[in-house]
């Protein structure tokens, strides 16, 4: 719940709009309740043999006012909500970018990021579904107390207690229960996801070993666990709803009893109570959503406000002149309890040098990139850029000099132009085409409708795997960095394209230095030096 409070504070910048939304919503609620009360009063007055003075006029005023205010309420609360959402997303993105480096893209799979984005979305409902009706409940409580209190103070106390239970206590309990169940639900959902991903990634194994039945049974067992967890939560929700409903009914019963003691205006009070209890009837259910949102808020805050893994030095050293990269006696593990990746690794990429690093998958090739880009820090040893320890340089300086083509570089759901400009915002049209030509994808882009302005689709979906990789390569080549780290640049290419690409790489790079990270060489690369990763060290291989 504390994390949720932090999120509310973040909304502070939009406080004016959010409060305005609440105020109009209160006015709208007030007219709605008054409309019911006056209707009741007008009819009740007939029974007691009089007439409610000005009832007709009031009804004629309240009716249109209610419709107009409700319309304004919808507009203003949605406007405020959209403002708060925008603020929250920008805040989250900034925080994550500063820490992203905490291994995102290196260690965390994309689905962790998707889940985080989902957590941010889970916070969207808090304002509309919870804060606005809560404010309404706070306003209605004293109104109800005074209205029933005229007849009987004890009955008024009962009604107020029941109303408070329905509006505050039950929602809070529902939120607590949902927060407690949230972890179990997340585990159950993750279990199902892993079981399905396993069976589908391993479809070949499953078919080859005739394991379809076993895998289906395993997935169904996980699903049953998830459904059971959801069912338990839904049962709580149903009982919370029923309890809220019984509170409302008991409250109305108390009002009816009070009517017997004090008939004057009793019809108005009854309809007022009906409207008041209806206004808060959805709050216990909203409590369940708030409970899950609190869990989501916790994760969001941790991701966006946790410690910065590799902080920039307080007093940065002047940027180096040269850009030779040297790893010196590195010892590195991602965390104290995970396996040691490097143990005494020393490796050098001189200026304009062409160096290859070979090693099987899982040997820590991408960890080396993480260290070179200040995403992680070695436990021992240092990384030098142009002779300067990168620990004394700001990350931005290092990253401007060391370009990187990852094994799974993300293509944004945007135009080809926008994807390229990410690397060099001021690049002109000719530079873009040069980069595309160098990456051997110029013809493909020419053939697309709109050429540079063609959309690449989600994750580059409108391009083939090989084309997507080449576009990412063009982006890396466009960046002005004097040193490029290429991590398996040919993954997804067929053999012929791979050889053609590697053969031309030397010319394309020009003055740039290159660290080529691959699991094996094809023989067409032109290299100055070849290293092999073995037992956490770089061992010289044939030059």
């Amino acid at each position, binding site marked *: 719940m504390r994390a949720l409070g932090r999120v509310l504070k973040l909304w502070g910048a939009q406080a004016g709009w959010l409060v305005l939304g609440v105020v109009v919503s209160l006015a709208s609620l007030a007219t709605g309740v008054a409309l019911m009360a006056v209707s009741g009063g007008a009819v009740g007055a007939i029974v007691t043999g009089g007439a409610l003075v000005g009832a007709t006029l009031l009804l004629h005023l309240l009716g249109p006012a209610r419709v107009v205010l409700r319309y304004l309420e919808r507009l203003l609360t949605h406007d405020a909500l959209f403002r708060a959402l925008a*603020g929250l997303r920008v805040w989250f993105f900034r925080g994550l970018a500063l820490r992203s480096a905490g291994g995102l893209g290196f260690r965390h799979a994309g689905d962790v990021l998707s889940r985080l984005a989902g957590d941010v979305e889970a916070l969207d409902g808090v304002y509309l579904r919870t804060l606005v009706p809560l404010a309404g409940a706070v306003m209605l409580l004293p109104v109800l107390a005074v209205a029933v209190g005229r007849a009987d103070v004890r009955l008024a106390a009962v009604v107020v207690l029941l109303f408070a239970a329905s509006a505050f206590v039950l929602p809070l309990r529902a939120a607590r229960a949902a927060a407690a169940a949230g972890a179990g639900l997340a585990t159950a959902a993750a279990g199902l996801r892993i079981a399905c991903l396993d069976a589908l*990634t391993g479809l070949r194994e499953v078919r080859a070993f005739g394991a379809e039945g076993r895998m289906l049974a395993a997935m169904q067992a996980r699903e049953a666990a998830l459904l059971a967890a959801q069912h338990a939560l839904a049962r709580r929700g149903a009982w919370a709803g029923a309890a809220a409903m019984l509170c409302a009914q008991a409250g109305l*019963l108390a009002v*009816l009893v009070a009517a017997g003691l004090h008939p004057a205006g009793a019809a108005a009070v009854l309809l007022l109570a009906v409207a008041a209890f209806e206004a808060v009837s959805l709050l216990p259910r909203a409590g369940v959503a708030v409970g899950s949102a609190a869990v989501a808020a916790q994760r969001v805050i941790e991701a966006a406000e946790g410690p910065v893994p590799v902080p920039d030095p307080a007093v940065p050293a002047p940027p180096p002149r040269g850009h030779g990269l040297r790893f010196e006696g590195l010892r590195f593990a991602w965390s104290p309890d995970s396996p040691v990746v490097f143990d005494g690794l020393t490796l050098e990429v001189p200026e304009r040098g062409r160096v290859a690093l070979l090693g099987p998958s899982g040997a820590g090739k991408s960890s080396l990139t993480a260290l070179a880009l200040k995403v992680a820090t070695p436990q021992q040893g240092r990384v030098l850029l142009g002779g300067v320890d990168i620990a004394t340089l700001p990350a931005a300086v290092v990253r401007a000099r060391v370009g990187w083509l990852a094994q799974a570089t993300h293509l944004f759901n945007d135009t080809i132009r926008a994807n390229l400009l990410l690397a060099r915002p001021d690049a002109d049209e000719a530079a873009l085409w040069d980069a595309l030509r160098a990456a051997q994808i110029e013809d493909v882009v020419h053939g697309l409708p709109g050429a540079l302005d063609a959309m690449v689709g989600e994750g580059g979906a409108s391009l083939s795997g090989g084309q997507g990789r080449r576009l990412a390569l063009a982006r890396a080549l466009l960046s002005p960095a004097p040193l490029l780290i290429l991590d398996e640049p040919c993954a997804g290419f067929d053999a012929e394209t791979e050889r053609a690409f590697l053969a031309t790489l030397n010319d394309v790079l020009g003055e740039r230095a290159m660290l080529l990270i691959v699991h094996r060489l094809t023989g067409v690369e032109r290299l100055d030096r070849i290293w092999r990763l073995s037992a956490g060290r770089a061992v010289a291989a044939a030059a």
Partner: protein
Amino acid sequence: MDATKQAARGWLGQQARTARRDARGVLVLALAATAAAIAQAWCAAAALTSALGRGGIAWQPLAAFAALAVVRAGLGVASERAAVAAGAAARRRLRTDALHRLLSAGPALLRERHSGELASIVVDRIEALDGFFGRYIPAAALAFAAPALVLAVVLWRDPVAAAIFAGAGLLVPFAMALAGLGAAAAARRQFEALARLQTRFLDRVRGIATIVMYGRAEDEAVALGQAATELRRRTMRVLRVAFLSSAALDLATALALILLALRGAAGRVPPGQALFELLLVPEFFAPLRTFALAYQDRLQAHGAAGPLASLPPPPPPAPALPVRTVAAHGVAVAFEDVRFTWDPARGPALDGLSFRVPAGETLVLAGPSGAGKTTVLEVLLGFVRPDAGRVTLNGADIITLVPQALARLTAWIGQQPVLFAGTIRDNIRFARPEASETELVEAVRFARVDGFAAALPRGLDTPVGEGGYGLSGGQAQRVAIARAFLKDAPLLLLDEPTAHLDPATEAEVLESLRRLTLGRTVILASHSAAAHAFGGRRLDLREGRAAPVRGVA
């Protein structure tokens, strides 16, 4: 509208028909709850009239009111649980169906689609349908039935009031249709706007490492804020018009209330009846409100339906061919003029291929990638069926074998074995769950898994796969060899088993593989020079055909 959208719509409609049958129980319970609410309104009106008229407390209607409240709460819980159960049943049904389709379509599917995408369809897309089955379908049924019940009760005593209810009720769909937008359109626009913002946000978060590495995080943060602001402006312009039709529901409610109150205040109906009618106004409009809220669930379902409708069709019923098994020892393999095409645009993968491998012998398939080596193995594994020609095992046509029989005959080691979430022991036992501990230990020793497992924190019980300890390529390949040994099948199919290994590890793995081939029929696809050491006959493939024989490797 394009064909995929049409398919999605058709699929969702079909699901909705089944779901409506399942939702009948929910409907009956919810209607019973509405009936109880009507009776309660009558009790409250009676108690109030008596209090206003004669003074004092009318205990009888109040007692009935209290009893009905309990009944109504019980019915509410029951109908909600029925709705949740209906949603869960629908998801279970859909997921089993989807998994069945995917498992039947088999490994050939992975050529076109990514397993992560398929898993997300099976898990997240189906979860996203919960609201549609659990909330929207019952709410849609109730949105008509519950107001109709209220109307019928009012009509019985007071036809004029019934006309007011009916008129106000009809105003809702009428105003929506007149505005041409409707609450539906408002909800859709709002939903789409949010979805667009979320898609962009998700896209940028997924690619955050790329953004950070190019030093563009601040620019992107600003752009994200601007996109959100721009989207808000455009959305609010639309909502300003669209919310007008939501106002129709408020207008109808207020109108009904005012007309009924004025009629009561004018003394045209008995006051008790007038109070009863006023108390029914919230009951009459509540299902319409619930329906408007649940409309979002329908929109979400439309988004989820597309990918689900695109899953491969269910497998045809088992063929009526005489199903056979083959003697399990000493398998001879023959390809006779076999043709197969993955994608017509890229030409045939196998183009009239013929060869024979006598029982117990080894055949090395050589040739550049794309020559059809993997396709040969996938035909033998039953992943795909040949388009033409015959593939026989000991003379039996492969398409007449039941998949289980074929799976028993073959062991397969691919380029990068998949390790499932679980321990190393679980992963080896996967090959034959009923294997004894002694057999397992033998397989571990044979494949030299014990060599690296001893150094792991929990030995054979170290978790691997998703969320577990990452094994190197060579270690994973050893697990695959242990699987194949444990399975002990007479036909061993090896698909570039050392393609992702460095030369030192390759030599070690090949040594284990060589021992595994003893006494089995082996087909090895490889363009690695080291595979020459395997001996046996060599077949050069070029564009799906056997190239002229160049002798024994």
